[in-house]
């Protein structure tokens, strides 16, 4: 029975390591598309600080988590402030995205109003 569980754990280790290595390698060599990771897509193509802060917070929390697991040899009890920080960070990112959506909808509405008034002036 012990041989069986050892074989199964090697299988899982193989899968996880192989996936992590292949995906990391492809991300680094850009074989996995990372174009526009930090660009705002809803309201133009500018660099987005909201995305950058979310990426930094994610990486920081991830690093803390890995270090805690290795140190305590248990799932860490994440401080409440970390969870709040991630939640706030995501909220900020989504807020930016929602603002972009709202801006583009307002722009569309404004264009329509201008078109209609042009037609009315031209006697259409």
């Amino acid at each position, binding site marked *: 029975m012990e041989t069986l569980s050892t074989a199964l754990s090697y299988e899982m280790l193989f899968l*996880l390591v192989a996936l992590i290595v292949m995906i990391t390698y492809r991300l680094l060599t850009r*074989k996995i598309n990372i174009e526009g990771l930090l660009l705002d897509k809803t309201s133009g193509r500018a660099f987005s600080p909201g995305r950058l802060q979310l990426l930094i917070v994610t990486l920081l929390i991830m690093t803390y988590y890995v270090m805690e697991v290795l140190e305590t040899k248990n799932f860490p009890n994440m401080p*409440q402030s970390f969870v709040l920080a991630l939640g706030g960070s995501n909220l900020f990112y989504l807020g930016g995205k929602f603002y972009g959506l709202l801006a583009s909808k307002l722009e569309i509405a404004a264009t329509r109003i201008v078109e209609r008034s042009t037609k009315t002036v031209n006697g259409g």
Partner: protein
Amino acid sequence: MTKYELLGLAIGWILTIVIGLLLFKIVWKIWRDEIDLTYLISDELGYASLSRFQMLLFSFVIAMSLFYLIVLKSDYPVLPKEILALLGISGGSYVLSKGIQSSRDVGMTEATGGKPPKENPDKPTHEPANGD
């Protein structure tokens, strides 16, 4: 060893071998580019999505920690609620982000008179589409 224990062992080995073959096949296909991962973290427009990237990072980290702890303690550890909250926030953010994106796409389609927005390429390309 009783016959039931023997049966359990046989089923265990069969499952281990089948799972092992499946895993090997998946990894082999990814290695040979038969499973294309180019757009693993991209959205429908071909741009990289930060929410998907975040999900990918958290999934890998938690999967590796879970594996490490199971091997170390030979027992399934209890997941603290904070970890579930992290995954939940990440997943929720991804879903909301997708909702905002599709709402924007619908608006763009309506604005262009039923035609798909210009940014939306017929099939994903490695180059981001020109949005003007």
